[in-house]
């Protein structure tokens, strides 16, 4: 499964948006990811990719693409 597919699955499951809306440039807030849902998304990402997402990077995550980049960075 592509990383985007898994990320999209988590966002759809958490925020209830449509999977086709979860494109790299989409803003998380527009997809319905509020602050409470954001911590759930982060939790699910950490579980799915077996990574730790530090709190410091959270403010820089605005779009779906930001998530993809952070995952790639952390996994390196």
């Amino acid at each position, binding site marked *: 499964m592509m990383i985007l597919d898994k990320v999209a699955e988590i966002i759809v499951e958490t925020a209830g948006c449509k999977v086709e809306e979860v494109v790299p440039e989409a803003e998380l807030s527009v997809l319905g990811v509020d602050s*409470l849902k954001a911590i759930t998304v982060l939790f699910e990402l950490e579980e799915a990719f077996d990574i730790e997402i530090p709190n410091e990077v959270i403010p820089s995550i605005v779009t779906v693409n930001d998530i993809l980049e952070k995952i790639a960075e952390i996994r390196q």
Partner: protein
Amino acid sequence: MLNRRVMVTGLGAVSGLGLDVPAFWEALKAGRSAIKPFDLPIDNIKMSRIVTVPAYETNRYFSSEELTILDRFSQLAVIAAQEAVDDAGLVCGENILTDAAAIIGSGCGGKHTDEATYDQLYKQQRSRAHPLTIPKGMPSAAASMVSLHLGIKGPAFVLASACASGSHAIIQGMTMIQSGMIDVALVGASDAPFTYGLLKSWDALRVASADTCRPFCKDRSGLVLGEGAAMLVLESEEHAKQRGAHIYSEVIGCGMTSDAGHITRPDVFGITNAIKNALHHAEVNTDEVDYINAHGTATTANDIAETEAINQVFGAHAKDLAVSSTKSMHGHALGASSALELVAATLAIHHGIIPPTANFTEADEKCNLDYVPNIARQQPVNIALSNSFAFGGLNAVIALKKYT
């Protein structure tokens, strides 16, 4: 300081007897017990009898978004709260409900959520907790979720006094209305205690019956745990009359005491004073009371102490009182029991029918009252008491009266 009269204008109940008040009352009238063999998918539990809420379609009551933040005890609270406000004719978004209070008791809070996370951390050795553990599991979650679901923006909180939590919550709402602080309060309690850790802990107390719940009987063998929630809409008389609300009964007084004695053993003195205080507060003579919905757990310690206290307070009139324990039917749903029992007492007044003590065989020699064995009694009830005596010696008695 005002001293306004307080009316019951709405009822909601979720219990082993059904998902609403009509199902609850039908079962109580029929003397039908929800006690059944332990059938939860949890291994290694000694408890062999239980009362569970019937399965329900969650999407009938909650949005999928709500469900992600609802512990089971909050779900039960919201279902009962919705029924109570619907019954009272109150509507989400309208001022009456917006300004109301939501005061909810709970003996154990969001244990399903807490334990699921602890299981993952301690047993499965997972490294992270689910991020919604705190908002779902916090003891106050039930009040928050009821407030969110119904758009209640007045005072809202959860209070805890074990098996008297519902009574204390109802008393809190009553006094806030009496004092003029608020006009309408949604009050009650919710408990969902069927988690591995809690069941093991109750096993360790050795108070659960292996048979059934037979309050006040010679062959009683202990309590049967249940789950559930009950809510009442309380309202000042003036407010209720002004909007033409249906009035079930009047809450006329309360008595609260603490034993300052033993952590689990009830104290006759504390119980006696709680009943006396309720009568004094309600300005009622002992011979005016028709019915007592007893705490009646079917433990040796409770039943004898409660009977002795009733005899002490009521003297010769004790023999003329109807005293029943509806725990024989809905089980001991901890804090929620006291709220379920106040709903039962309210309906007894409203319908003129006293629910029985089910599963009754032969009275214990130290239990010498009229326990309304097995069959409901058609009898006008003008004044009723509801007794709740919690672990830790926290006692609460509420007096209700037929509204005229």
